[in-house]
């Protein structure tokens, strides 16, 4: 990349101010959730009346919450592993091999990203109903797998693109069988992408609401639980506390995943000749 800087002179300038304001617009509204979760009042309003951990304490004895949490974690783990396996295979196929119909195939796999969630949700709901599959965590899992696989594939494609074929061939020439080649060459190189994909797929499933809303049976997930709680005004502070925890966890996991993934990509491009 050329070091040409299209703006001579001011580097930060008005655009920089705009960028900071923009970040404020993205972040500040969400920050009210943790802020009021520590406020000593059932009403979510200024002035702040005092600091309390009461709402967090109430989380501990909320019936159904723990169950929903466990469900969400179980679901997220399964979805993350499956989506990452599928995404890695698919990414490998489109980056490593010349295949006919590459464009349409990629478009097809990316479709869940551009079809409104409500349509995916009701379509799956209908088929689950007609095949007698019924609604359960399994159907939610199918829905989540559908929307996280494209992301997993995108993450893996950006990791595997420009991946040096010669490394695998060298390993083969040196007498490794395909299995050994995979474990000794392919896997270590793909690892940052795999970790990022696992974490991001988990977060997608953990936070997903619309599909889960249509596909949930008697077992709920955390977002469904929250949705149910929103009807009760007195429960709102507890919802805020729960929301603050979820945001915190999602934020840490995703920041780590993005940092890990993008750092990997950067290292790769920097070391490239």
């Amino acid at each position, binding site marked *: 990349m050329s070091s040409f800087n299209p703006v001579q002179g001011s580097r930060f300038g008005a655009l920089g101010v705009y960028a900071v304001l923009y970040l404020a617009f993205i972040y500040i509204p969400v920050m009210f959730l943790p802020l009021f979760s520590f406020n000593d009042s059932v009403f979510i309003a200024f002035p702040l009346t005092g600091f309390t951990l009461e709402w967090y304490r109430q989380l501990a004895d909320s019936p159904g919450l723990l169950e929903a949490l466990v469900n969400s974690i179980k679901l997220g783990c399964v979805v993350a592993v499956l989506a990452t396996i599928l995404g890695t295979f698919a990414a490998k196929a489109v980056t490593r091999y010349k*295949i006919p119909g590459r464009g349409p195939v990629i478009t097809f796999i990316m479709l869940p990203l551009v079809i409104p969630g409500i349509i995916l949700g009701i*379509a799956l709901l209908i088929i689950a109903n007609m095949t007698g599959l019924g609604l359960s965590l399994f159907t939610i899992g199918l829905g989540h797998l559908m929307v996280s696989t494209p992301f997993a594939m995108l993450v893996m494609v950006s990791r595997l693109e420009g991946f040096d074929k010669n490394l695998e061939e060298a390993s083969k020439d040196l007498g490794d069988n395909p299995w050994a080649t995979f474990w000794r060459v392919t896997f270590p190189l793909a690892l940052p992408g795999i970790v990022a994909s696992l974490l991001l797929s988990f977060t997608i499933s953990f936070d997903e609401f619309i599909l889960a809303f*249509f596909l949930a049976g008697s077992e709920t997930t955390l977002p469904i639980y929250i949705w149910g709680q929103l009807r009760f005004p007195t429960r709102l502070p507890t919802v805020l506390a729960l929301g603050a925890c979820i945001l915190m966890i999602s934020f840490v996991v995703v920041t780590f995943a993005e940092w890990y993934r993008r750092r990997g990509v950067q290292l790769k491009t920097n070391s490239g000749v």
Partner: protein
Amino acid sequence: MTDRVAPAPDLFAPAPRGPIAWFRRALMRSEAVSGYTLLSPTLLLLILIMALPILLLVVFSFWTQNYVDIDKTFTLANYAKFFERSAYSYLLGKSVLISGSVTLITVLLAYPMAYFIAFRVTKHKLIWLILITVPFWTSYLLRVFAWKIILGYNGVINSGLMEIGWIVEPLAFLLYNPFAVVLTLAHAWAAFAILPIYVSLEKIDRSLLEAATDLGDGRIRRFIRITLPLSMPGLIAASLLVFIPTVGDFVTPNLVGGTSGTMIGNVIQSLFGRGNNWPFGAALSIITMITITGMICLFLWGTRSFRRRVA
């Protein structure tokens, strides 16, 4: 580039026979087969849980609800119902209008930000990209919910303004209207628009900009002649990524829209819930999808003619 040559066979060993051996050899030889073998689990899954269900949704829209049973005789009654009662097309039109405004606002707000990261940030690009991406991975439900407590009658803004004495009574017009929906959606989808625009800006060959400057173009002229047309693919992708999913959204209108902010997604959702008329809900969602596709074609045609005019 030379064709990849299959590994030289051991001439003295008898060639393995049988379908499995043949399949293995074909696998080694053909890139297409290898590629599709790797793709097959994903494709199969998506056919089973996306393509087939959507086809079934189309079929469903031609059936009718008969109290608790589904009448499976082919009929256009659901579609006729949509066109007979103007309330539905009004809601669909409103949804498209709301999503269109959201898309316009989101993309306009995102462009300078993406431009900033692509052209001005040199050292800490990674940090900026992460700062932008992270909120969009976090819970959509909670981001929407945040606006409900901000805009509410006794919410953050009203109580805050009353606290500092700027208003005496809460402003009732903040929540439960289409503007609240637009604002909330624009916030919730912000990060979605930045990344595609950023990628297309980052790809622009900097020497083109240099050339334009050398040929005497000022900043604005250079932007209109080089940067903007070359970032069009990103702008288009960003618009579609925001527009398509927001048309069918029901969470935001449900939480902050009130009656005047109701969208088509709310109707579809209730038809699959309390309304219990799945076939009509299916028809409504098919009509929504067709409308979205139509809008996209119109949009792509519009941007193409714009690009041609600039070029």
